[in-house]
Every structure is written in structure tokens, then in C-alpha cells.
């Protein structure tokens, strides 16, 4: 159980790092959204589930309830993160941020 929790947490940190690198490296706003919105939500869910498993390692009823609460955060992130991404995308569309396309790249 502890090893599974540790593995999940390390994987989550890896995806967080990928998300941040994506935010820094991608060329325009829309592509940055891909890295920011999604890598982050998966990473957050992985780390949160890992912490819930770690919390269950010394088993007791109150720890079980705390783990349920931690999983509730995961469910919340799972619903809220794509909604926020969608809202920001539509706002960018409205104010007319131009997307980066392949043609703009000088050959």
C-alpha cells in the first residue's frame, strides 16, 4: 500500500512538472491551455489519491472518513478543472486572441 501511494505521488509530481514545462514552452495561449488544464488535473488527482492511500495505511474508521474527504477533493478537481479551462477558452475566443498556426513559422 505504501509503495503504491509513493508511486502515485511521484507520478503526480512528474505530471505537474510536465504541465509547468508545457506552460513555459508552448508558443501561444491555446496550446498552453492544453498543458495547464489537463496535465495539472490528472497530476492533482494522482497525488490526492496517493495521499488518501497513505492515510489509509494505519487503518481506523476515522481515517477512512478522512480518506473519503480527500477523495471528495479529487472528484471536485475532476469536475471543476475542465469547466474552468472551458470558461477561459471561451473568454480568449471572445476577446480575440489569435491562435498560433503552423504557417506562421518562418521556414
Amino acid at each position, binding site marked *: 500500500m505504501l509503495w503504491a501511494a509513493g508511486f502515485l505521488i511521484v507520478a503526480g509530481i512528474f505530471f505537474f512538472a510536465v504541465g509547468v514545462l508545457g506552460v513555459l514552452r508552448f508558443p501561444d495561449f491555446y496550446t498552453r491551455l492544453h498543458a495547464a488544464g489537463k496535465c495539472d488535473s490528472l497530476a492533482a488527482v494522482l497525488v490526492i489519491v496517493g495521499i488518501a492511500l497513505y492515510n489509509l495505511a494505519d487503518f481506523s474508521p476515522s481515517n477512512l472518513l478522512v480518506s473519503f474527504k480527500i477523495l471528495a477533493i479529487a472528484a471536485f478537481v475532476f469536475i*471543476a478543472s475542465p*469547466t474552468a479551462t472551458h470558461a477561459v477558452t471561451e473568454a480568449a*475566443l471572445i476577446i480575440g486572441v489569435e491562435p498560433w498556426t503552423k504557417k506562421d513559422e518562418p521556414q
Partner: protein
Amino acid sequence: MKLLQERVKDRPAGENLIIRTAVRLMIPFIQLYGLYVIVHGHYSPGGGFQGGVVLGASFILLALAYDLRTSLRFMSERVNAVLGNVGVLIYTGTGLLCALLGGLFLDYSALDRILPLGPVEWRSLGIFVVEVGVGIAVMSIMTSLFWDLGSGGEMDEGL
């Protein structure tokens, strides 16, 4: 791209199916969480103020996802004003009652004279009552602040 922009511009600002549905499914849980934070104020972090902020945030979320009119349908301005005053009244009323019964302001052990439960129990119960009052007041003031700022005081069109 252009077609899409036109389409989004033509639509009224509250007409977003995705945001609406997600917010609709979340709000009851958020309200319950706010009440939980208020009620469990003396065992866990939080208490009246934080719970009130979460409760007010649920109404703000409703106004953001739909529009001001919808949030006014769930919580009318009159009810909101009454709730704010009731919250403050609970807080000062408890404090004054303690003072009238011979203690200091908000000295809950004085309430022991009404119903002898023991000063320790009265202290915990008194904190609970005061926190409920603070929570209600904070919720009402958060909501009405957002309504007034979001609509410029006109209350018909807004954020």
C-alpha cells in the same frame, strides 16, 4: 474562427451549457460544506466567518454561471437583508443577554442562570450560537456586496 466568435457573441452571457451543468451539480454540495464548516467550528479550522464565506460563494457561483436574476430567484434581496440583520442580532443578542445576566459581554458562563447545564457546556453552546449568527451575517453581506458591485447598484443587468 470568425463564425465561432459571432456565435458566442450573439448568445446571452449566461447561456453556457457546460458551465451551467457543472455549477448546478456542485452548488448543493458547496452549501452543505459551508454549513458543515460553521457547525464544526470548534473542532476543526473554520467557524462562522469561513463558513459564511463559502455559503456566500455558492450564491456568487450561481450568479456567475447563470445571471443575477436567477440568483435573485433563489435568494431574494428582501430575504437576504432580513438574514443579515438576524445574524447580527443573534450575535449581539447573545452578548447582551450574557451582560444582562451579570457577566461580561459574551461571557457565556453567565447563561448558566437560565438553565443550569454547567458553565463549560454553556461556553461551548454559546460559541456555537454566536458562530451561527456570524455565519449568517457574513453570507448575507458577501452576497449583497457581489450583487451591488456586479450590477452597479441597479440590480437588473450585471456580471
